[in-house]
């Protein structure tokens, strides 16, 4: 079972079960989209993979480690910081910080030195085509640019896994496609990507799609590419 993530769980937040026994395996290097209707548990699943939610039952393995047992803040924060990168629908950049400082922020929690952090952040921003916008604040950037900043932030600590929650939800289709092209490049670079979306045009970029409904997985190997 090398280099495999695996999630089994049974989750019931208080009396409302959101995930009712989800089994899924996501391999290293895969680009997986999670689709399904609203309230079907897509985001909850993503949050559990991202170590933001504890599981209420079942087991979650990340890199052969049983995360459902490691519940201490320090370990979880470390995993989120070093092994994962989050990309949100609404970008979630810190408005009073410049693009550069936003990107550098995870480096602060990783304990990188000031210079190292800024160097890496500059490098990531340049790679993603925002080398000339480093000192702009989020409010001075377009939606597509902001999302690119948040991708750069997700990448600063070189994580294995990219978690994206509706990354194109707040963007028009053209910039959305640009963002997806970046995702494809990340996949080629060997990153594992798990993305929640409800747009088939976006989901088609993924290797496979996990369909969810009412807290259960309906289909974990659906391929949009083949139907096209």
């Amino acid at each position, binding site marked *: 079972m090398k280099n495999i993530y695996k999630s089994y769980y049974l989750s019931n937040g208080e009396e409302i079960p959101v995930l009712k026994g989800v089994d899924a395996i996501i391999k290293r290097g895969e680009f997986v989209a999670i689709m399904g209707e609203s309230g079907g548990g897509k985001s909850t699943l993503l*949050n559990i993979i*991202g170590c*933001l*939610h504890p599981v209420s039952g079942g087991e979650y393995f990340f890199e052969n480690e049983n995360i459902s047992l490691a519940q201490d*803040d*320090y370990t979880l*924060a*470390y995993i*989120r*910081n*070093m092994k994962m*990168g*989050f990309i*949100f629908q609404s970008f*979630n*950049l*810190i408005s*009073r*910080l410049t693009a550069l400082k936003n990107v550098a*922020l*995870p480096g*602060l*929690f*990783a*304990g990188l030195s*000031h210079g190292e952090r800024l160097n890496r952040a500059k490098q990531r921003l340049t790679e993603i085509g925002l080398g000339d916008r480093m000192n702009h604040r989020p409010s001075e950037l377009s939606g597509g640019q902001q999302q690119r900043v948040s991708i750069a*932030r*997700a990448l600063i*600590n070189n994580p294995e896994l990219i978690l994206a929650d509706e990354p194109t939800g707040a963007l028009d289709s053209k910039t959305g496609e640009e963002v997806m092209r970046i995702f494809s490049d990340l996949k080629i670079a060997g990153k594992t990507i798990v993305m929640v979306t409800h747009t088939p045009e976006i989901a088609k970029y993924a290797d496979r799609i996990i369909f969810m409904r009412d807290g259960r997985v309906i289909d974990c190997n659906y391929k949009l590419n083949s139907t096209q």
Partner: protein
Amino acid sequence: MKFEILVMAFEALFSNKTRSALSMLGIVIGVSTIILVVGIGLGAQLEIEEQYKNLSVTSILVNPVSTASSISRLSADDIEVISEKAQHVENATALTQGKLSVSYSKEEGQYTVLGVQDNFFALSNLEFASGRGISDQELKDRAKVAVLSQDLIDDLFAGNAKKAIGETVSVGGKKVEVIGVIKGSGSSVGPITFDDSIYVPYSTAEKNILGSSGSVRLIVLANSVDVIADAMDELTVILRDSHNLKSSDVDDFRARDQGSRVTAAQESAKTMSALLTAVASIVLIVSGIGIMNVMFVTVAERTKEIGVMKAIGGKKEDILTQFLMEALVLSFLAGLIGILLGEASMPFINKIEGWRVVSSLSGIVIGFSFSIFVGVFFGFYPALKASRLDPVDALRSE
């Protein structure tokens, strides 16, 4: 890392200047009040010490009291009786006081003229800037000599004490030779201030200069603080006897001990200080609650940011440090401004008649540490709440 968090705290506070400034205001006022209060307390203490420094706490001042039927019979003769009979008295001196014109060459002015005995200068702890005091012999001879104080030197001799020795000044038209100059002390006893007086031998004053117009006082030193009350009782009996008062007659003098006055003054200054410090502490606590309130609002406003921080790897500890640092920076800056404000307002307060504040390290230290304490104490709970937010809930908030 810690420095970065400090920088971020500054940035966060700077992005909301008005709110930060307003929340600091309370602490600024609290700290400057503490500094001023400590300063005023010390000023009062110093004032009291200076006023009474020339008199030991064992001294008793006997003032004349003139009744309708008779004038006071206090005189130098009383001193002899006291030294002979009193058990609890260490030393005693008589002085006679009046106000006359004193002149030297073209300069002239009205000054207090004090006829004193030879033990006066030692008893009052007055020091000589130059020359010497009045001798026993000069007292017996009714010598025409005088000791000047600082004010007269300034007015008549342009501040040159050495030049005055040997010169002749005119006191109420009588020529006397200057034999000594005392240092300025700023002190006084009863209505007599030592710095603006001219001192002549008691006998000279009584017979030649003041005559019967002088009012006579006694300064008596008790053996120790413990026997002041006994000494005063004793003095009353001796003086009544010496003045041949009948039992129906009221005293023609009033004895007041300086020690109890010093103590009373010090006590009231202390009470005042304690009261003002309590007020300042309340101001600080209230301002602390203000800071807590502001921090809660800040945490609520930045809930989403906290969620983001957690998602990208911020530990509880990091979030706690971040917000605690903001509260600390607020209180630190407020403390500094408070110190500056307090110190800067001291000269203005000193200009007010009867007020005196003294800058002191202890005031600064107390005020500053209080502000830091308030920052940590009232900033901790909001920061703790922020650190404990559930990341998913925090991210979901708008």
